[in-house]
């Protein structure tokens, strides 16, 4: 049992974890970089300690400092969130050594699943199907990879051995372009994970990205909470997730769930984790990887099952048995999550930084927003561009889409550009509405002009708005000129200025 949890993360997920702790009566310790003094997780936590300068490797990746703070503050558990140190076995091991509960799996399970080769071999041995590739063959040189590529066949993917989140990932269509892509993949992997090793994997075309949420306790109980549909991605970054998937039926869900449980058991997994699968058009599915941590998109599963995954993580880490058996898990309605990123969908999704000057959150029935930002907060270039997650629940998928539409329309964020218009366009896309999409949909068959035909054109209103704003700006500057012309005496100005500032 523990009573004080250090959250080794920032942003919305740090806030999410603080909330769970607070609702369990557990004290919370935040850590923060110099860029995050004003962040919500610092404001909401019971305690807060500075880690260092803004760059992650000088702050949120500083294991040593985080462990020192845990000691100093008397925190007896650490929740790593996602990203940063969440999948570092050495960090989990260091916690264990110091008698601090790591709210996540054992180091051995992180290690087994973190190294994609080991993960692949482990689950294959347990009878779980995998995608053809070189993952099981260790750190190959460029030469070796170029030699083996034709045997796997094109198209194929280069992936970072230490990776996740699409970083260091490259798609290869032919042998000629492969050397350059290998270089850039290794460079990105090195920069993101400090490990430039990569492997090759067959690209399953027309595939859906389906992941199964699992929960496992130290008593050996393992259950799954159904799937999440995560196929809507851009540059291998997820943009929108759903639970459940419009593609799965109950039989396939049960089958994939059972395989996921088997994969988790293969590494004696404890705590929350996610098994990612590729599902092809014929409903064959292949193990991709296991995320040995809480996922960004866990709320959609929470919305359809009513299970609070973070609270369950804490419960498991406290050594207690799961609150639910597999037969207690029931699915109710449909949930969708839109990741709200500070980026400009009209300018190639370029990250957008700046101060949020104004914000109105969508609220009301069936709407949940998980966010770490607020009006006055500055979005810096140092961290992930995801500033909020907008999650809605509906009795049916159609109702969830309609609700998401109204929530997106209500959402106001001023000061940075966001990808809200992207999601609005997606909600109007017939293919999305029909549930007919795969992992290539966003990049290959979707454009921001896609929904043109379905949507009313407001050219005239746009003309009117721009003209009114422009006119007002002209009027204002004209007034200033006039005022300056009138006031010939500078001394008058001084008097006025002083009165204003008294």
């Amino acid at each position, binding site marked *: 049992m523990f009573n004080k949890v250090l959250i080794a993360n920032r942003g919305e997920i740090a806030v999410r974890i603080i909330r769970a702790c607070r609702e369990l009566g557990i004290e919370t310790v935040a850590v923060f970089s110099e860029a995050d003094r004003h962040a919500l997780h610092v404001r909401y936590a019971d305690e807060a300690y500075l880690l260092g300068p803004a760059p992650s490797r000088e702050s949120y990746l500083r294991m040593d400092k985080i462990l020192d703070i845990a000691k100093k503050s008397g925190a007896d558990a650490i929740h790593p969130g996602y990203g940063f140190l969440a999948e570092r076995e050495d960090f989990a091991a260091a916690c264990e050594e110091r008698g601090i509960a790591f709210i996540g799996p054992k180091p051995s399970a992180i290690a087994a699943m973190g190294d994609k080769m080991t993960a692949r071999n482990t689950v294959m041995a347990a009878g779980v199907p995998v995608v053809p590739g070189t993952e099981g063959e260790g750190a190959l040189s460029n030469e070796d990879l170029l030699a083996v590529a034709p045997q796997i066949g094109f198209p194929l993917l280069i992936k970072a051995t230490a990776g996740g989140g699409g970083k260091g990932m490259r798609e290869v269509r032919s042998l000629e372009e492969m050397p350059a892509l290998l270089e850039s993949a290794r460079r990105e992997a090195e920069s993101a994970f400090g490990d430039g090793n990569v492997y090759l994997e067959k690209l399953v075309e027309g595939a859906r990205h389906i992941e199964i949420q699992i929960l496992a306790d130290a008593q050996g109980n393992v259950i799954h909470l159904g799937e999440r549909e995560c196929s809507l991605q851009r540059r291998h970054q997820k943009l929108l997730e759903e639970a459940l998937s419009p593609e799965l039926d109950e039989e396939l869900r049960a089958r994939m769930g059972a395989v996921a449980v088997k994969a988790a058991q293969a590494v004696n997994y404890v705590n929350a984790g996610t098994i990612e699968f590729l599902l092809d058009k014929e409903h064959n599915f292949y193990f991709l990887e296991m995320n040995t941590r809480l996922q960004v998109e866990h709320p959609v599963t929470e919305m359809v099952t009513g299970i609070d995954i973070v609270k369950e993580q804490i419960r498991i880490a406290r050594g207690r048995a799961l609150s639910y058996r597999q037969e207690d898990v029931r699915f109710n309605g449909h949930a969708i999550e839109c990741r709200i990123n500070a980026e400009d969908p009209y300018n190639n999704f370029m990250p957008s930084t700046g101060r949020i000057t104004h914000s109105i959150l969508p609220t009301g029935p069936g709407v949940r927003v998980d966010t770490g930002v607020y009006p006055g907060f500055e979005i810096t270039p140092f961290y992930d561009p995801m500033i909020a997650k907008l999650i809605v629940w509906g009795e049916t998928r159609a109702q969830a889409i309609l609700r998401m539409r109204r929530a*997106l329309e209500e959402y106001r964020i001023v000061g940075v550009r966001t990808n809200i218009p992207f999601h609005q366009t997606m909600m109007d896309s017939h293919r999305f509405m029909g549930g007919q999409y795969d992992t290539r949909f966003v990049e290959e068959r979707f454009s921001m002009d896609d929904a043109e035909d379905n949507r009313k054109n407001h050219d005239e209103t746009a003309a009117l708005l721009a003209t009114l704003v422009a006119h007002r700006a002209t009027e204002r500057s004209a007034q200033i000129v006039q005022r300056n012309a009138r006031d010939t005496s500078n001394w008058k100005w001084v008097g006025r200025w002083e009165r204003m500032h008294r």
Partner: protein
Amino acid sequence: MRYITTVGEREFLVEIIDEHHVSIDGKTYEVDFVSVSGQPVYSLIVDGKSHEAYVNESDEGWQVLLRGRLYPVKVEDEREKRLRAAAGGGVAETGEFHLKAPMPGLVVAVPVTEGQQVKKGQVLVILESMKMQNELKSPRDGTVARIRVKAGESVEQKQALLSVQ
């Protein structure tokens, strides 16, 4: 005050009659137009229809984000319109292009050298920001000139990176 306002291909003649009346292409509307909380967010009621939009000024004119769609708009008075017509319009395809950093970040690589010939779409600079590597590409064919940054350097938003002639 009369304006010629262009949205995409469509041109509108907009006249601001008084605070509550505007005509578009000769048809008069009653308008109720306010800014929300002093932000670049505007609420407009035109003959009962309620609209709300973000309106921002950009280098190319105005951007109106309305119901999840971006409308690039040009607003000119008659004098400006005539001036532009006289100049011939259009962005010169032959002048110098100055690549500026679209956001603050870290230069990861500059895969071109001064004097090098580049094609439209070729990567000029790789800039890391928010943990993403962003490829900044050439908008047209040309020759690279005056590279002002190198890999490992931090740059501010709008900082000049290099030119293409």
